[in-house]
């Protein structure tokens, strides 16, 4: 029995060993197959997988360029970049925004305003990966959040450069502001093919020079190769093509002068534009009231926006650039020049002013601002005392189309071409214009109103300053510009803006001299701005004006005291100084201030005192100061 077992056992053993051998063969074959697979992956396809692994770990990250600075003509910084921290939420990495914000609020302060601002941005910038819930975190807040950061996937603290406008509202209307790139901006950038240039950038110029010089200020983004982990977190920078910072803007603006001009405005609303006649450079660009442009950079909350947008004083309106007002009597020097140049008047021609003017066959009589009239008036006197009746007759003799074409030379009715976007062209009427606009023929009576700057007749304060600068510069026209030169951030090279004159208005020097002399005498005793000119250590030329806000019925008298403040006339004044060799030309509009001589001319005087004679004003102009007439 044991023997047979042994025999069987031997047979069994043999069979077992054969089977084990087969299994061993299978093991070797299987390992061979694995090795073949490894060879395939690691040798044959190595390049492919190497690339895949590199793609995994290396992310190409755009590096946003630093925006160029904006400086005034003396190097005062108007827009700079400060570094600060923001707390940003990546909307695609956060499931429940509300809950996340609520939790964040327990670590850092998040005001209801921040929440509203954030909501608004969510709607306006659907394309943005991350949006800030809080900006300008303190170091303490950054530390607090960092300790808890693991709880907030999709929320990150970012160190960023912030645009800062240190002079806040002083230069708001000239410099403007930047804001977050919203969906509309994205569309525009796509249309212009500039998307690549804005990779990594969150902001873009929205208003003012920040918008009109966007291309110069923005710069060129760089590219960084960054090693990232599987969660997309950047670990280290492997290589970098640095961004090229945007170019700096150096302005013709003189913020000290700007400050003086703002201060002398006091509580009045209005605008003042000062131009250097010899270059077209804008020395001051005031629109009152102003606003704080810093509010707009990272999205303004709806409440603050409403308070600015629905403010009856309209602080967001750029009155200097887009406010259009009747010229009033400031049109008279240009009308006088037209009369002389076109041979309709001589300097000696004298009228007897009865205090009103009539047209044959027209019942209406056009009144002079002075009841009873000015008596015997020639061209010189017509400017000095601002006689209406003289210009009713002159306008009638010139005809509207002559007025239109002559005044066009001084930039009325068209954009000046200043380097800020959004400029309004104003209105310089003609027969053709009226036909187009109202499908009506031009009446002779229309011309009479236009002759003293009323009726269909609108100009911006900028246009007033521009036209005055042309006169001051004896007809040589420079395009107005606020940027003096663009400074290349790499080479320091300066590109001058508008250094050459545009054209020259052909004017007979003799006629020009007569008008200019009359404008000087406006500021002398007996002139409409005589009180404003009193005691000046230099000569300056000017012309007062009043723009009606409401129309007067026939026979009605304008009574300043009876009329609500908002319906009072606007005061206008154009001027340049020094009269002999002008270095500054002004266009001033003061809303609801009454006569041009009463408020606007003293403002000009104080600005000139500072700019020409170096005298700082002691106080702003007040309503009851100097009661000069139209």
């Amino acid at each position: 029995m044991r023997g047979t077992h042994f025999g069987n056992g031997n047979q069994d053993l043999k069979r077992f060993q054969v089977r084990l051998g087969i299994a061993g063969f299978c093991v070797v074959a299987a390992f061979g197959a694995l090795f073949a697979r490894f060879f395939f992956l690691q040798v044959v396809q190595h390049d492919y997988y190497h690339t895949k692994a590199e793609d995994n770990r290396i992310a190409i990250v755009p590096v946003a360029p630093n925006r160029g600075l904006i400086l005034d003509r003396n190097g005062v910084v108007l827009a700079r970049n400060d570094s600060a921290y923001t707390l940003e939420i990546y909307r695609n990495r956060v499931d429940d925004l509300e809950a996340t914000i609520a939790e964040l609020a327990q670590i850092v302060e998040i005001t209801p305003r921040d929440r509203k601002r954030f909501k608004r941005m969510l709607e306006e910038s659907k394309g943005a990966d991350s949006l800030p819930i809080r900006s300008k975190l303190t170091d303490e807040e950054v530390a607090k959040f960092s300790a808890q950061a693991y709880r907030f996937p999709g929320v990150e603290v970012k160190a960023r450069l912030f645009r800062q406008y240190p002079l806040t509202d002083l230069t708001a209307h000239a410099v403007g502001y930047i804001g977050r790139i919203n969906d509309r901006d994205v569309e525009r950038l796509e249309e212009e093919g500039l998307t690549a240039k804005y990779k990594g950038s969150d902001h873009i110029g929205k208003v003012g020079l920040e918008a009109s010089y966007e291309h110069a200020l923005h710069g060129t983004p760089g590219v960084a190769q960054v090693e990232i982990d599987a969660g997309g977190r950047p670990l280290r920078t492997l290589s970098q093509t640095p961004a090229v910072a945007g170019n700096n803007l150096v302005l013709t603006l003189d913020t000290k002068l700007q400050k003086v001009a703002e201060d002398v405005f006091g509580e009045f609303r209005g605008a003042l534009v000062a131009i250097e006649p010899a270059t077209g450079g804008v020395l001051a660009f005031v629109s009152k009231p102003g606003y704080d442009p810093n509010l707009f950079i990272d999205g303004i909350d709806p409440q603050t926006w409403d308070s600015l947008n629905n403010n009856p004083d309209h602080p967001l309106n750029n009155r200097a650039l887009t406010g259009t007002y009747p010229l009033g009597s400031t049109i008279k020097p240009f009308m006088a020049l037209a009369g002389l140049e076109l041979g309709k008047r001589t300097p000696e021609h004298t009228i007897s002013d009865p205090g009103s003017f009539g047209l044959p066959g027209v019942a209406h009589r056009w009144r002079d601002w002075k009841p009873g009239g000015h008596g015997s008036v020639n061209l010189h006197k017509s400017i000095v005392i601002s006689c209406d009746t003289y210009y009713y007759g002159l306008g009638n003799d010139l005809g509207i189309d002559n007025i239109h074409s002559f005044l066009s030379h001084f930039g009325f009715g068209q954009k000046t071409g200043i380097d800020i976007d959004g400029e309004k062209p104003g209105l310089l009427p003609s027969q053709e214009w009226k036909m187009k606009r109202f499908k009506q023929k031009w009446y002779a009576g229309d011309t009479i109103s236009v002759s003293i700057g009323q009726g269909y007749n609108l100009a911006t304060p900028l246009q007033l300053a521009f036209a005055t600068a042309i006169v001051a510069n004896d007809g040589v026209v420079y395009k107005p510009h606020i940027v003096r030169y663009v400074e290349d951030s790499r080479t320091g090279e300066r590109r001058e803006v508008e250094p050459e004159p545009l054209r020259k208005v052909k004017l007979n020097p003799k006629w020009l001299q007569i008008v200019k002399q009359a404008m000087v005498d406006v500021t002398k005793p007996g002139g409409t701005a005589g009180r404003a000119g009193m005691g000046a250590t230099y000569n300056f030329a000017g012309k007062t004006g009043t723009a009606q806000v409401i129309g007067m019925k026939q026979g009605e008298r304008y009574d300043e005291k009876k009329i609500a403040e908002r319906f009072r006339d606007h005061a206008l004044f154009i001027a340049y100084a020094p009269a002999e060799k002008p270095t500054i030309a002004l266009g001033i509009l003061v809303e609801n201030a009454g006569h041009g001589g009463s408020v606007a001319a003293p403002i000009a005087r104080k600005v000139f005192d500072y700019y020409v004679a170096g005298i700082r004003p002691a106080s702003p102009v007040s309503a009851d100061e100097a009661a000069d007439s139209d």
Partner: protein
Amino acid sequence: MTSITANDVALGLKERFVDSIDGPLFSIALLILALGLATLYSAAYGNPARVTGQLANVGVAVLIMWLVAQVQPQTLARLAVPIYVVGVGLLVAVALFGEIVNGARRWLDLGVTRIQPSEMMKIAMPLMLAWFFQRREGQLGWQDWLAAGVLFAVPVALIAKQPDLGTALLVAAAGFYVIFLAGLSWKVLIGGAIAGAASLPLVWSMLHDYQRKRVLTLIDPTTDPLGAGYHIIQSTIAVGSGGSMGKGWLQGTQTHLEFIPERTTDFIFAVYSEEFGLLGNGALLVLYLLLIARGMVIAANAATLFQRLLAGAIVLSFFTYCFVNMGMVSGILPVVGVPLPLVSYGGTAMVTLFTGIGILMSIQRNRKLVQT
């Protein structure tokens, strides 16, 4: 019989502590362990607790190996039935009271600790079947094959039902190796293979969604690059980008930038492969092959049928773990939860593996004693 000399004591100690350990088997295992710890150090970069934890696992496992090596094979044979019965009993308990973790009922809470009874079946299954064939040695009839089939099928079905397809396959493999080595006729084997292939659609219809997905993802990982396919895609990239020489220890970008999921456990081979390349893979394959070869020699020289079958099944199971894991990581087999032997982090697998090695050592040591 007279006095015990110091020499005798030394010899006795040597016999007790050293001779029970098979030199070649143990040194190859230690070499693989060393590679494994180095890889784990890299994979767990920034978490040294994983390495010390693994060292503790190895310590416990080696102690168990040594204890098992002391046990006589006959004792093992006597324990086969109780272990198997307890194992199946526990599997039934799991099916009835088991805890559900990640959608599968695999764990049994004993109050003190939680255990995964399917893991012990990896040893209990070959132990039981080897004992059975030993008992029926020389008188095998078709009823015996049928009985073996039942002993095989019950635990496999219970584990597959949990569902834990990976473990079920491994337990089935261990059982199958015993039956194969015991001499199941080729006709049945081939017939079974054909029947198996024919029943694939039926099996497919019984698979859970996640299991089907794994198979489908294997065929084309890109259908689900962020979900089920992510593991395969990233591990294949890791392996392929390793190249012939590897990126160097601690230099694997896929590893250190956390692109490889489960990189200290089931997918640790991707880490190894990325850092040591084809050269390292070849070396590891050779080490595994040597270990398997040594095990086969032990099986071939074993004293009894029970020992032969048990040793053979243990060695082939070991091979299966290696093959399935490396095949899965390199993208030729579906993702099943099988750790890489002696390399992956984990205490349970380590203990199971060293228990197997301990059994092999016990069989090796006892081969002469009975044969003479």
